[in-house]
């Protein structure tokens, strides 16, 4: 069978609805304008793909408060001593220099969807034709009674990477011999489903080296969690007797903390701990709420192009979006960003739009050279992003496979960060 290109493309896009004439831009300005809020796996990827592939036909502004962005993925490996903090920090110079993206280091504080403008904390107002929100997560207030952002130094969350990761690591290194580390794990849904459990593994790995009589208390409101069999097998093998998990049957749902006293109250039982990592319940980053595109904690989107169900000119990517079956992960945000970038270019310049495809893989490190992974492919359906196929590492895999999985995760980190920033 041979297909000429025109015939093949026609067949391919026959079902894609948005192959249409360029949007008419009525207010007389020049090039169409895209504003992207948030420079993580969703936002940086979307900005890069739109600017790169539109070859100057679209003005792209990326609003990101931090000049040095630390990826949440691999920040547990920093805590475990497998990477330096500098190695997970990235800057936006290449996006500005190579793709002429207007990188603005500021906070977006308001969105006026009828005027199609974004206000920044510094006072600037950015007009847009398409707005892409990729703000990540914020914590739900009072999710863990006694904890608030004001207490994040005493009890770090370390669930936005950077100074918090550094703080938590320093506290772990300074724990008294035989001391106790506690984690309050979040309820579903939350960023990086295996993240808390990979972190427990990394903390155990550090303590095994420098503080082998220390104990780890994992307080978890969930019955089950991601890669549970793999983590439990790994903990038994590498850190026997060190980790205790209290699920909902043992008070894991009814937890409050006292950061001044460094105590955790688990359903009436008060425990003194030396380090307490509180990862509260989560919601879409604040700007998504201010923009009025959230329904409850998250922003519902259409699967075909990641556009908000509240506004076709606003797209929401990554952790902040309620999209269906994909987990909240950097890989997923990067995958969604490419679908969104294609749709936005199609709408603004008439470029080809192909059917959406999504992928996710999450690697986790349990101990040195003991990596595991879970992944799936997804497609856009009428009501959500729906899982098509998936896989997960097996328990009992040999050391060769586990080492290869770890090495693969290192390769993936290089790949995805190049796809975001280079």
């Amino acid at each position: 069978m041979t297909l000429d290109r025109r015939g093949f493309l026609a067949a391919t896009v026959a079902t894609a609805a948005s192959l249409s004439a360029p949007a008419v831009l009525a207010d007389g300005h020049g090039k169409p304008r895209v504003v992207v809020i948030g420079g993580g796996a969703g936002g940086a990827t979307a900005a890069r793909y739109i600017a790169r592939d539109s070859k100057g036909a679209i003005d792209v502004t990326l609003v990101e408060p931090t000049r040095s962005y630390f990826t949440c993925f691999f920040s547990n490996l920093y805590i475990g001593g497998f990477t330096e903090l500098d190695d997970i920090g990235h800057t936006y110079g290449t996006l500005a220099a190579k793709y002429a993206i207007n990188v603005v280091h500021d906070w977006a504080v308001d969105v006026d969807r009828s005027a199609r403008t974004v206000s920044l904390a510094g006072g600037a107002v950015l007009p847009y034709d398409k707005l892409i929100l990729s703000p990540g997560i914020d914590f739900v207030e009072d999710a863990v009674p006694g904890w608030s952002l004001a207490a994040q130094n005493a009890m770090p969350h370390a669930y936005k990477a950077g100074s918090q990761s550094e703080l938590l690591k320093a506290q772990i290194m300074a724990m008294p011999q035989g001391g106790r580390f506690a984690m309050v794990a979040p309820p579903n849904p939350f960023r990086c489903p295996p993240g808390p459990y990979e972190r427990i593994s990394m903390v155990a790995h550090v303590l095994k080296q420098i503080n082998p009589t220390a104990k780890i208390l994992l307080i978890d409101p969930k019955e089950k969690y991601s890669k549970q069999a793999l983590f439990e097998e790994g903990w038994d093998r590498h850190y026997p007797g060190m980790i205790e998990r209290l699920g909902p049957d043992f008070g894991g749902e009814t937890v409050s903390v006292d950061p001044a006293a460094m105590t955790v109250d688990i359903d009436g039982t008060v425990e003194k701990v030396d380090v307490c990592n509180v990862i509260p319940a989560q919601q879409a980053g604040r700007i998504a709420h201010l923009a009025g595109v959230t329904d409850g904690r998250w922003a519902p989107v259409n699967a075909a192009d990641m556009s908000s169900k509240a506004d076709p000119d606003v797209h929401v990517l990554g952790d902040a979006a309620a999209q269906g079956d994909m987990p909240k992960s950097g890989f997923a945000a990067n995958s969604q960003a490419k679908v969104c970038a294609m749709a936005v270019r199609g709408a603004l310049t008439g470029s080809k739009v192909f059917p959406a495809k999504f992928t996710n893989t999450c690697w986790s490190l349990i101990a040195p050279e003991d990596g595991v992974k879970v992944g799936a492919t997804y497609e856009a359906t009428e009501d959500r992003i729906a899982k098509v196929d998936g896989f997960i590492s097996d328990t009992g895999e040999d050391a060769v496979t586990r080492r290869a999985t770890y090495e693969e995760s290192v390769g993936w980190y290089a790949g995805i960060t190049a796809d975001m920033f280079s």
Partner: protein
Amino acid sequence: MARRSPLTLGLAAILAAGLAQAEPVGDAARGDTAFRDCSGCHQIGSGAADGIGPHLNGIFGRRAGAHEGFPYSASMTRAGVDGLTWDFRTLDAYIENPRALVSKTRMSYRGMKDAQARADLIAFLRRFSDNPSNIPEAAPTARGTDHAVAPEILAIQGDPDYGEYLSSECVSCHQVDGSANGIPSITQWPEEDFVVAMHAYKNRLRPHPVMQMMAGRLADEEIAALAAYFKALE
């Protein structure tokens, strides 16, 4: 040469599996003749040693690239690490077209196209493995099939523009600049190699679970498009 009879082993496995009969894999005597294609590099039987290629005693059930002391290609080692194990199905595919299974194998053999000849050869090889698994006498599942990618699929002219769009899924892991650190480079592969390799993942001959999943949902035209795109990358 001491050759072990396959009959006892085969029967035991068949009885264990509760199966009434199994189709014999091939004619080991004819396979002995076919092995002349291999014997320039591979030894087999009592006293066999490694030569240009590794000896082939006990090949069934052995992980690819795992025979101690033999200097395998990086490609073969990686295939083994990914989980490639020699059984009827994988040997059949490898003998038919070595590169389909292991892209940069050092085995400079063009491949044996005739399915019956391969079955005969595998029946012969099998006599020198104590623990053959997943071959027709042991578990009558994967009788030799045609592992070659059909000529009409190879003839599809891939659309590099479509490939560029599809490639956004690949480049979350594989770097376009060709760096290969933990994840191999897929840039500038010959198109046919790319297509053959992707179909081998799609058919679950190549073992990597992520790649099986990714290739599994790509249509023939999409694989051709990706091959065209990655071939043309600078």
